[in-house]
């Protein structure tokens, strides 16, 4: 190595970590894919939709709000298909990956005592952080693409009366992917900041849960509507994706994502790790 030169990018670390998270990623991707098929299996048939909506109407109205609100009605095939994107189980799977990956990789290695070994090799702390960031963000977008592929597969498996506007679903998926990646970046920030896994996970999950419930309550309770813009979920309002790319919202998400990632990188680089 030349004197003062930065070590080459640690692709070995990227591969090593990828091999560790791949089984989990595949499991999550499979569940998200199957969820789209399952939702399509219900919503392609009007009789099933009626039964489904009757069932939803029996539940507290907040549940309907969480699944899509007024978009859920007979004849609105696209709105019904979007349940597969808004469903709390799908969101839970996304957030499981968003929180688990960066905290598990960075704080997990620190707590296991193996980060000392990694950092004793020819690799910088920032490169280690970047590896965790790449796997989080790329993994997140790959999950979103799997979700979209699930919709494509479902549209080809089942017959729908109306044309399913796949381009809208693609826009929703990309926008949703940005939101999920922003949560991933926040988790990365937590992983770079906290020395203990439970602390990093707790703060990341708390941020996510508060955002989610504020979004649900502000949509469900008119008096709380003023809280809508406070949450990150406001930036993936799928109704805007019908008209075109929601560039403003996507721009805001990208800025938040980059800021959280950069702040996390600075903190991670400057602090002494509890080795």
């Amino acid at each position, binding site marked *: *190595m030349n004197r003062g030169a930065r070590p080459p990018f*640690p692709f070995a670390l990227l591969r090593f970590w990828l091999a560790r998270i791949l089984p989990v990623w595949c499991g999550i991707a499979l569940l998200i894919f199957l969820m789209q098929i399952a939702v399509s299996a219900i919503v392609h048939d009007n009789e099933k939709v009626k039964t489904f909506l009757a069932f939803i109407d029996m539940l507290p109205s907040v549940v309907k709000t969480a699944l899509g609100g007024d978009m859920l009605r007979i004849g609105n095939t696209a709105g019904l298909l979007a349940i597969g994107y808004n469903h709390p189980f799908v969101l839970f799977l996304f957030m499981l990956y968003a929180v688990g990956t960066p905290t598990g990789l960075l704080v997990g290695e620190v707590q296991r005592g193996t980060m000392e*070994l990694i950092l004793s090799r020819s*690799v910088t702390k*920032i490169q280690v952080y970047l590896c965790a960031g790449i796997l989080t963000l790329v993994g997140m977008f790959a999950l979103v693409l799997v979700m979209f592929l699930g919709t494509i597969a479902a549209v080809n498996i089942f017959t729908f009366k109306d044309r399913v506007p796949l381009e809208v679903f693609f826009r929703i998926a990309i926008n949703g992917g940005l939101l999920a990646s922003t949560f991933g970046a926040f988790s990365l920030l937590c992983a770079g900041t906290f020395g203990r896994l439970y602390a990093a996970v707790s703060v990341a999950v708390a941020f996510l849960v508060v955002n989610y419930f504020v979004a649900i309550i502000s949509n469900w309770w008119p008096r709380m509507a003023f809280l809508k813009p406070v949450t990150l979920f406001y930036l993936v309002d799928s109704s805007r994706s019908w008209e075109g790319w929601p560039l403003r919202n996507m721009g805001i998400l990208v800025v938040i994502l980059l800021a959280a990632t950069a702040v996390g990188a600075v903190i991670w680089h400057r602090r002494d790790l509890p080795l």
Partner: protein
Amino acid sequence: MAAIEIESLTKWYGRTRGVEDVTFAIERGEIFGYLGPNGSGKTTTIRCLMGLLRPSGGGVRVLGERVVPGRGTQHARIGYLPGDFRIWGRARARRSLGFLAALGSDGSAARRRELAVRLELNLDRATGDLSKGNRQKVALISAFQHQPEVLVLDEPTAGLDPLMRQTALDLIRAAAGGGAAVLLSSHDLSEVSAVCSRAAILREGRLVEMAPISQIIQQGEHRLKIWFRNGALTREVPLPQLPGVRVVEKEPGMLHLAYQGAADAILKWVAQFPVDRVATPQTSLEEAFIQYYRQSSNAKGPTAKGGSA
């Protein structure tokens, strides 16, 4: 140019001192012992040297380059064995070692195999299933596998059986013979005196001694063992009249004394009795080390901190 240069290194953990004003240098081909009890700051020094901790003051240079924390400075040329070696338990030793070698250096699988044969280690077992001694062998291979120019070894023989300990010491000697600079931190003073040419002793984060091993031993107490003819020693040793002298052992007809400074006063006192024979046992590094701590036990400073050392 020294391979490792540590100058006025200081590290505080809040208000607790890790190390303060530590300065030393290690030349290529030299094995340098780094001694101190738990909490004296050995691991803190090593982690600053590896760029794992950000020093509060002073600096470190390795192979001529200033160590910048978190930048992996010259790490491709350093073999590091941490005091508390932990590795991925589920992965096979071969895979973990291959991964560590691939992180920015020319890890040689052939060299890895050669070391495994020498240390009698099966690389195809998961490290989580290995005994403590075998995990230590994995640690040794991880430090030596890329034939580094600098070796930073924190308790390298911990948990090894006596035969493997010798093999490990041979590896260290061979590396130094090939021109590597070795920083060897250890509690095992016999090991340090066996392989090191120089050593530094750390107490509560400060260097209290740095000298060739032989000099450290000589600076300690000297020993004198006297056998008296027919149990001729009839009186107690007049310790108040013999400053710096203490009785190590006393048996009928035999007296084992330790003394500092000149032996003149003792010999004059002993000459009053018929002496059968005299021996001067060698002081060990361990005795010298204990003495450093005994001498300075009254001068208490803030407690040092930092990992296992």
